[in-house]
């Protein structure tokens, strides 16, 4: 029983320690990686806008797509899927 308790605390200390160590190492690695890439392989243009999260993509497409076309497309896709 004592053994179980001490094992549990061991797991907690080791676990949290390891999680922190790993993620701190990852912070340094990531920062270093970004610095190297942006220095030696700079992007021609930032692409952040290019891969929006799906929520954004849906929002933006909703704004730019004409509703009738969108309806037509949805129907066509449906039709296509049903084949």
């Amino acid at each position, binding site marked *: *029983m*004592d053994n*179980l*308790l001490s*094992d*549990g*605390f*061991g*797991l*907690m200390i*080791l*676990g*949290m320690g*390891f*999680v*922190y*160590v*790993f*993620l*701190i*190492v*990852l*912070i340094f*690695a*990531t*920062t270093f*990686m*970004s610095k190297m*890439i*942006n220095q030696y*392989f*700079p*992007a021609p243009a*930032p*692409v*952040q*806008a*290019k*891969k929006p*999260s*799906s*929520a954004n993509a849906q929002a933006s497409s909703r704004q730019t797509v004409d509703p009738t076309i969108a309806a037509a497309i949805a129907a066509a896709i449906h039709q296509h899927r049903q084949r």
Partner: protein
Amino acid sequence: MEHKLINLYHDTGIYQLQLGQLVMIAVGLLLIYLAIKKGFEPLLLLPIGVGAILVNIPGAGFMAAPVYDAAGHMVSPGGLQYYIYHGGIETGLFPLMIFMGVGAMTDFGPMLANPKTLLLGAAAQFGIFATVIGAVLLGAAGIMDFTLADAAAIGIIGGADGPTAIFVASRLAPDLLGAIAVAAYSYMALVPLIQPPIMRALTSVEERSIKMEQLRPVSKTEKIVFPIVVLLLVAMFLPSAAPLLGMFCFGNLMRECGVVDRLSDTAQNALINIVTIFLGLGVGSKLSSEAFLNVETLGILSLGLVAFSIGTAAGVLMAKMLNKFSATPINPLIGAAGVSAVPMAARVANKVGLEANKQNFLLMHAMGPNVAGVIGSAVAAGVMLSYVGG
């Protein structure tokens, strides 16, 4: 023929049904209700609910093992859930495929723009280990019958990540798998109810109103190299987390590299959907009355709630501390997103932030700790597998 009629009656559910099975069918119905009506993580809880009903139908044999004769010919085939559970869950294949698909759906951009947020993803994992201690205490006090492996598997509920929880539970505590998966997905669905009070209690209105600087653009190359960096660090430091994080990084690399879009597309759609259906039915197969209807399940459900709460608090407190030392302001609310529960927790941070300041859009800032939390809990899972197994 009367004999056959009696046989048929003896085959019916009415004749065979035990109370435990009836209760578990009701639990399955409850999960279906929560999934459909309340929107509780329906992609998993609906198949789990159906799986729970199927496995508890007396005489239907969904978990029956196949029988072979001495020459290796099949005498009677196994049940559907038998094949799903032993083929996809016991082996770990399904959670790993899901994790690959999740990787292919994850955008690390916001995290790469602000790597400090990885610390928030680390802090929020405290919920995991605090819960382990809780389970160990219940076990040590003799209240519940938890081993260290059980305690570790229960703790992972605090990781707020379904496939990680299922993967760890299938290895450390298969008997508790059903309850652990149900708890993990249920609390992930309850994040919008669990987190806000804790977030408000630990922060002032001024803190919640803090505006954060716009994130820098992240280049395509950074996004491509990042999963490889994570994979190599995992290989060096924590091989026991390599199955989970390896598949996660593989999925993310397929997404970002831009040359295998058809594979990435399939990993995000057809493949993850197929596996999700079977994963749900397989997890549901562990919702038998013997495994679920006992005091341990109550312990698991309570401890899971504690885990989420402590994780949320740890994330917020870590963010408050970071804010003190950081050159650029950090809104403590985004710390709560470190529990993962992607993207629900990030949306909750955004919503609570908007309450305090109608111009304060935290969603993108919260996505950083949110995806960091996925890595954090996979690392925690690796430590547990190494510590308990080794």
